[in-house]
């Protein structure tokens, strides 16, 4: 029973982590990219271009 409880906790924590990750990324707060090549240019640090300019 204890074994199942531990597994449930781990799976629950993983679910919360993924949910939080998705939530933060859609709000532009998670870095998202996993590569150092971004060199700090990840979305969390990026200045959104001015609304007057866009792409």
């Amino acid at each position, binding site marked *: 029973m204890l074994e199942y409880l531990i597994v449930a906790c781990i799976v629950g924590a993983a679910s919360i982590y993924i949910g939080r990750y998705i939530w933060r990324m859609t709000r532009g707060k998670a870095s998202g990219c*996993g590569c150092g090549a971004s060199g700090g240019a990840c979305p969390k640090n990026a200045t959104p271009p001015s609304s007057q300019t866009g792409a």
Partner: protein
Amino acid sequence: MKTLALVGNPNVGKTAVFNALTGLSQNTGNYAGVTVERKRGRFHAGAVTVDILDLPGAYSLSARSPDEIILSDVLLGQQAQEQPVDGMIIIIDASNLERNLFFVSQLLETDLPAVVVLNMMDIAKRRGLVIDTAALAEQLGAPVIPICAHRREGLPALREAVAQLAEGKLTRAPLPSALPEVQQEAVTAMVALLGEHAGAIGRQVPRLEALRLLVDQGGYAEKRIARRAGQAIVPELARLRQMACVNGAPLAVQEANIRYRWVRSVMDHAVRKPESRLRSRSERIDDVLTHKVFGSLIFLGVMVVLFQAIYSWSGPAMDLVDTVMGGIGEWVASVVPEGVLQSLLVDGLVAGVGGVIIFLPQILLLSLFIALLEDCGYMARAAFLMDKTLSWCGLSGQSFIPMITSFACAIPGVLATRTIHHRRDRLATILVAPLMSCSARLPVYVIMISAFIPAKPLLGGLLNLQGVMLFLMYCVGVVVAVPLAWIFKKLFFRGVKPPFILEMPSYKVPQVRSVGMKVYREGKDFVVRAGTLICAVTIIVWALAYFPHAEEIGARFDAERAAVTVQVTDPAALEEALFELDTQESGEYLRNSFLGQFGHVVEPIFMPLGWDWRIATATIASFPAREIIVATLGTLFNLGAELDETSPGLIDTLRASTWPDGRPLFTIPVALSIMVFFALCCQCAATLVTIRRETLQWRWPIISFTYMTVLAYVAAFVTYQGSKLLLG
């Protein structure tokens, strides 16, 4: 707290100075456009603490591209959520003074206190330039500090000057405007006109901004004012521009002539050039590396050798990581009693996350090679060589830097498109940049190539088929991107091909610190990602593939095992029969799991690609981040347990896996179709979010995702069916 801005032309070493002053380690590279974002750091000198802003480079205050807009907005105090800066640290490439001083003349017309930093003094000396810094300071009306940032020479004097700047000890009068009276009158009239619209614009427009507005016909400044004050102001602007024309020459041309006259006068006072100009080492190297034929061949050769090296050199390190992960798995299995928790730890975490970590050596090697190419200055040459190819599809070499940046990661690649002036070219580049094979695709390629492509030696053993195959997979993205960009340009972004002007930086010996930081950052992020997101997804995939774990299946197989034990008397035959039953039981559990049931629903969609439900499910699970597939395959195929104890690695597991009728599941056509699918599919939520942030519309990430997914499916289908026909 005061804020000082680092400003100057692109690729003059602003970020190197920023890192030296703040102790941070922002990315640097020996090509224009590395910094497309403002970055903030803190500088301390004794009691002085000041914020330093590292800004993207620009050639003038006439902003055209989004990265230049960030610079001009910060300097003119128009950047939202950013206080106006209190001073400028102007960085100049000492070996290229004439061009740099054009922008300096514009900057010094502002009333901001400034320090002028002469960087790359070593190259200037090598070229025989003698710069009288005192005379230059007198001409510019600001202190001039000679340094060599990458060798960390002259930094104490720079720190002292920055501290004085921060303390407000360095004041100066703005350079008098170089424009003659007729243009000054036009600027005054412009200030008056904008004053009439101050309510709509929301502020009084300063004289410097009014001048930029007058000069930059159709530029960013004009669009912004027209949006706020209404289109009615545009004819008024045209009238004032007409007023500023002299002999039919527009103000922009006059400004360039006047400023370059000033630059030449400053040069005459402060710089002594060698009598005869010797061709520099970089120019001599460029004769070969940018040669129409040899340059392209060398570029191709460099890429082939790079991927061959990634493949060959990482072998021992991968074996080491594999052994360590195998040892961890065995240790966990010996410590944790058999059951659900052991399955989670061994089949889920160790098999999944361990399967990803094993690719760390290759990721490090790839990032090392990219960092070396960036730092030595070869990237700009590669862009130059690709200009002809890209011009075929209506893009220019300007798009190549974002595309080649995407080989490491699509996110900085998408951000790097900020250097592209034209909106339509920028959007076309954003749409094709994620097709470049980023480092996250590397594990997928390596695992498939290692398992199913023979290591046949080529060119007398110099190369082998596996390394060449890896190179070809990296080419898939480029080969597809070029015609696609042409289609996008024809369909959505019609227009003339933009001119391409690229500064060729001098070749430099890559700096150990800069390269080391890039490799370290890449490796750290890969490990962190494996330990967080990939780990979490692996746990969920394991849970979905383990449960409901119906008891009746276990009971049925227990009964069968008991029967076999009674019927079979030969110990070897009994062991084989029990192993067969164990394998069947694991497969039965997996097929009846939640993931198994889902997989069988989606399996028909992926059958034409030669995939079974496990590959299909792993692919679907990896849509948030493509490297998840390795972990998911590790978990799914380990739970299936179709391997004996002597073949613990994922590669062996995949080789041993079969369809229910016993046919091998993974064949060369299946491996090729998986690689092609992953090469072309947009399985990266972070990239899509970045596209949304950069374009300010959801339309573009949706288009990206849709076209790439459809393209990946069709290409994988064609690859599978075609290679099946060819290979029989």
